C-alpha cells in the first residue's frame, strides 16, 4: 500500500496549519513526522483520516485519487489512526470499543461479542498486543488503552497506521513494548506514520523522517544521515541547546514538609503509603517514578484536589493539610497540573481569559467589580510572546491550540504569579525540544529567585536535567532519595523498578536503639 498527500493546505480562521505539504508512506515503512508544537502534524493527519477537509490538495491511495469526507471513508480505504487524545469510550469494554462501527451481529441486530473477541484475540496474538477483551477501558492503564486503539485500527484492516504522539504518556517499559509492536507491524507490511517529540525514539524506529515547521515541510532525512542536534535545529529553525545550564543549588529553609502521608485513589485503594519528604527554598526536588505509582494522587492531595487520608503537610510554619486550591494559591503556591485538559484550562474560553484564570480578581486585571479587558489583553500578548504560544490571536478559544501549546499556556499562567512553592507535574509532556528547553530554564530561574520546586516527572531525562535531589517513588512509597551528584541513570532506573538500595543508609538523625523507646 502507498499513501500520498499531494500539495495539502489546511487553513483555519487566521492560521495556515498546513501549507502545500507532500508526504508519501509505503507499506513496510515507518515515516516519522517531526515538528514544533503547532507545526501542523495533528492537523495533517486529521486531514488524511477524513476528520478535516483539506482546503487544497489531494490524497492518493496506491496512485488512485481518494476523497475522504469523513473518517468512514478513510477507514474504508485502509487508514487507521491512534489519536493524540484517545478515542475510547471509558465505560465500554475492550470488545465494544473495538467493534464499534463495525459490529458483528447475529439475528435481530444482536451483538456477537464472542465472534468479535475471537477475531480480536487472533490479531492480538499476531502482533503481540495483549488485551483482556472484557475489561472495561477506564480500569486499564494508558499503555493498554493504547494497545486497544491500535487493535481497533487493525480490526478494521488498516494498512496504513497513524500514531499521533503515542509515546507521550507511556512508561519506559510501555515504550519498549510499543516499539516492538511497531516493528512487527512494519514486518507485516503496514505503512506507519509516527509522530513524536522524542528524538531518540524517532532515530531508533524511523525509516524516513519528515520535518514540518509552521505548516510546511522543511526537510526530509533518514536516521543514518542525521542526529538529535541536527533534527532539533531543523524543527526550530535555529540552534537549540538541548541541555539547561544550571548552577548547583544553595538550599535554604524548608518550604514544604510532608509527613507520613496516606492517600487513596478513586477506587479507595491506598496508593500513597506513608510518604515523607521536604522541599527547601532554592532547590528542585524531583519525584521520579514510573507513572501509576501514586505520584498523581500524591500531588492531587498536596494541591487540594484529593482527600488526605492521614498525614501532615506544612508550608513554612503553617499546617496546610487538606487546604483548598484557593488557599494554597493565596499562599503563593503554583501548580502545573498533569491532566491539562481536565484540570488546567477551560477550552471554550479565550486564551487571554485562560491566562488570568488564577489572577483575574487581582490588580491590575480587576478594578472594583469590573475586569480591565485591556490589561488582560496586554498581559496575554506578552505571555504569548514570551512562551512562544502559537496562535493567531489571544482571543482564540483555548481549545483550538495544539496539544503542546495548551500546555505552554498553562505553564505561562502559573509562572506569572509570585512564588514560594512551584509544584509541576509532567510540565513538559508533549512539548517540542525548544519549548522543553525554555520551560526548563524558567523552572531553574524560579529556583534561583528563591522558590522551592517540587517536580514530578516520569521522564528520566527531565529528572536528570533539572533535579537537585531525586526522590524515587515506587508502589506508593519513596524508595530512595539521592543527591543529584550521586545519581546516575542506572541507580535511579533501578529504584524506579522497585529495587531498593543494597545497604540502606541509616535514617537521620540516628535514633537510639533499645527497648522502651
Amino acid at each position, binding site marked *: 500500500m502507498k499513501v500520498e498527500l499531494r500539495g495539502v493546505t489546511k487553513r483555519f480562521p487566521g492560521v495556515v496549519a498546513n501549507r502545500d505539504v507532500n508526504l508519501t508512506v509505503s507499506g513496510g515503512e515507518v515515516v516519522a513526522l517531526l515538528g514544533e508544537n503547532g507545526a501542523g502534524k495533528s492537523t495533517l493527519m486529521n486531514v488524511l483520516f477524513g*476528520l478535516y477537509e483539506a482546503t487544497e490538495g489531494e490524497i492518493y491511495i496506491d496512485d488512485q485519487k481518494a476523497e475522504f469526507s469523513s*473518517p468512514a471513508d478513510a477507514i474504508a480505504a485502509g487508514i487507521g489512526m491512534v489519536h493524540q487524545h484517545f478515542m475510547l*469510550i471509558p*465505560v*465500554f469494554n475492550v470488545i465494544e470499543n473495538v467493534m464499534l462501527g463495525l459490529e458483528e451481529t447475529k439475528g435481530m441486530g444482536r*451483538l456477537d461479542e464472542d465472534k468479535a473477541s475471537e477475531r480480536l484475540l487472533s490479531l492480538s496474538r499476531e502482533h503481540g498486543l495483549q488485551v483482556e477483551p472484557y475489561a472495561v477501558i477506564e480500569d486499564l492503564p494508558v499503555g493498554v488503552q493504547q494497545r486497544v486503539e491500535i487493535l481497533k485500527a487493525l480490526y478494521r484492516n488498516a494498512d496504513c497506521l497513524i500514531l499521533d504522539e503515542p509515546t507521550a504518556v507511556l512508561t519506559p517499559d510501555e515504550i519498549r513494548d510499543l516499539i516492538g509492536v511497531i516493528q512487527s507491524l512494519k514486518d507485516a507490511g503496514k505503512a506507519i506514520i509516527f509522530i513524536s517529540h522524542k528524538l531518540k525514539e524517532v532515530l531508533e524506529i524511523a525509516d524516513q523522517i519528515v520535518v514540518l515547521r509552521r505548516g510546511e515541510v522543511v526537510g526530509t532525512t533518514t536516521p543514518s544521515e542525521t542526529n538529535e542536534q541536527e533534527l532539533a535545529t531543523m524543527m526550530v529553525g535555529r540552534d537549540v541547546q538541548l541541555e539547561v545550564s544550571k548552577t548547583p543549588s544553595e538550599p535554604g529553609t524548608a518550604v514544604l514538609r510532608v509527613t507520613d502521608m496516606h492517600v487513596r485513589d478513586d*477506587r479507595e485503594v491506598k496508593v500513597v503509603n506513608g510518604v515523607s519528604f521536604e522541599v527547601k527554598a532554592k532547590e528542585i526536588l524531583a519525584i521520579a517514578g514510573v507513572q501509576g505509582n501514586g505520584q498523581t494522587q500524591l500531588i492531587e492531595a498536596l494541591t487540594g484536589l484529593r482527600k488526605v487520608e492521614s498525614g501532615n503537610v506544612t508550608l513554612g510554619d503553617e499546617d496546610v493539610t487538606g487546604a483548598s486550591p484557593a488557599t494554597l494559591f493565596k499562599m503563593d503556591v503554583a501548580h502545573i497540573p498533569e491532566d491539562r485538559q481536565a484540570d488546567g484550562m477551560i477550552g471554550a474560553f479565550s486564551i487571554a481569559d485562560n491566562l488570568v484564570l488564577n489572577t483575574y480578581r487581582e490588580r491590575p486585571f480587576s478594578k472594583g467589580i469590573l475586569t480591565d479587558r485591556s490589561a488582560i489583553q496586554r498581559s496575554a500578548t506578552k505571555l504569548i510572546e514570551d512562551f512562544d504560544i502559537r496562535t493567531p490571536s489571544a482571543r482564540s478559544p483555548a481549545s483550538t491550540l495544539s496539544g503542546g501549546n495548551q500546555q505552554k499556556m498553562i505553564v505561562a499562567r502559573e509562572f506569572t504569579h509570585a512564588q514560594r512553592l512551584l509544584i509541576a507535574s509532567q510540565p513538559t509532556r508533549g512539548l517540542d525540544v525548544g519549548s522543553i528547553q525554555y520551560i526548563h530554564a524558567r523552572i531553574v530561574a524560579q529556583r534561583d529567585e528563591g522558590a522551592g520546586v517540587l517536580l514530578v516527572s516520569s521522564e528520566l531525562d527531565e529528572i536528570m536535567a533539572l533535579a537537585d535531589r531525586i526522590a524515587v517513588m515506587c508502589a506508593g512509597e519513596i524508595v530512595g532519595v539521592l543527591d543529584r551528584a550521586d545519581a546516575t541513570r542506572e541507580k535511579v532506573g533501578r529504584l524506579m523498578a522497585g529495587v531498593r538500595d543494597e545497604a540502606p543508609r541509616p535514617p537521620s538523625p540516628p535514633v537510639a536503639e533499645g527497648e522502651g523507646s
Partner: protein
Amino acid sequence: MSSHSATVTTSRISPARARGFGIFFIFLAVAMAVLFGMGSGPDSATFGLNGPDQFADLPTVEIPAAGTAYFLAVVAAFLGGMQLARGFGHRIYLVLGVVVFLFIFAFLVWATEDNSLNLYGMLQSTLLRAIPLTLGAISGVLCEKSGVVNIAIEGMMLFSAFMGVIIGSASGNLWIGLIGGALAGGVLSSVLAVLSIRYRVDQIIAGTVLNIFALGITSYLTARVLVEYQNLNNPGTFRQFSIPIVSKIPLIGPLLFRNNILIFLTFVLVGAVWFGLNKTRWGLRVRAVGEHPKAADTVGINVQRVRYRNVIMGGVVAGLAGAYLTLGSVGRFDENMTAGKGFIALAAMLFGRYNPVGAFGAALVFGFAESLQNKLAILNVGISSELLAMAPYLATLLVVAGVVGRTRVPAADGVPYVKE
C-alpha cells in the same frame, strides 16, 4: 456469555457507599420496628387479593399488624447486616428495592390494622398510574442515552394527549387518534432535535420553551375549541381485553393480562428498549454517541443522525404516554391534565438509572405512592392523608438523594457535537 455486555448498569461501589447502604437498611429496619411495630395495636390487617374472572379465588389474608412489622424489620435488618458483613456487590440496587418494598409493605400493614384493604385494587391502580410515567421515562432514556437532554417530556405528553383526543374524535377512530398523538409527540421532539442538534441551543432552554408552548397552545385551544365543540372531546377509550388462560391466574392474571392495548404496548416497550440499548448494534452506537461523540465519529458513526433518530423516537414514545392519558384512560382532555407527570417521569428515569426496566420499577414506586394517597383516606388512619401520602415520597427522596446518589449520566449528555 452475553452478560458481559451489560456494562451500562455496572458501576463500582466504594466501601464507604457500601457501608452507607448497610446502615441505611438497618435504619429502615429500626424505623419499621418503632413506627409500625410498636405503633400497631393488637389487631390484624385483612387483605383481599382477588381480581375479576379468575380460575379460583384466593382466601382473604389476615395477618397480625405488629407481628408482621417486627418480622419485616428483622428481615430488613438481616439484609443490612449481610451488606455490612460481606456486601451484595453490584446486586445492591436490587436489594435496595427489596428493602424499600418491605418498608412500604410494613407501612401498609400498619395503616390497615383493624381494617381490610383490597390489595388487588391497590396494585391495579399502582400499575395504571405507573404506565404514563414509564412511557415518559423511556422517552427520556432514548433521548439522553444519545446525548440530548429532554425536559420537554411534559410538554410532549400534554400536546399529544390533546392531539390524540381531537384526531380520535374527529376521525371517530381510536387508532387514528393514537397514531395522531404519537406523531404529535414526534413533531414536537423534531423541533427539540433541530434546536439542540442543529442550532445547538441550550437544551434546557429549548425544552422549557417547548413545555410553555405546549401548555399555552393546548389551554388556548381547549378554551376556544373544545369548550364549544364538545364532540371533539369525546373519542372514547381503548377497551381492555384479556389474554386467554393466563388472565385467569389468581391476582397476577387480571392484574397483568387484562388490560388495554396501550398497557400491553408499554410492557413490550420496556423489554424492547432495554434489549435494544444493551444487546444490539443500534444500542451500542446510541450509547457510544451519548458517551463520547467524537470517538463515535472517528469510527464512522454519523453522530447527528443517531441523535435525530433517537430524539424523534423519544418524542413518539412521549406521544404514546400522552395518548394513554386520554385515549387509554379517561377518554377526554382537560386543561394541563399532565400536571407534572412528565417531570415525575424524568425523576423515574434518573431513579431507574437510565435503564428502561429500572425506570419501570421507579414508576411503580411513584404510582404506588399516588394510589396510597387515595386509599388512606378510605382506611381512615389517624393522621391526615395528605401528610401520610408524603411518606413514600420521602422514602424515595431519601433513596434518590442519599443512597443511590450519583447516577452515572451519559458523559456527553446535553453537550452538542461540533465537528471541526
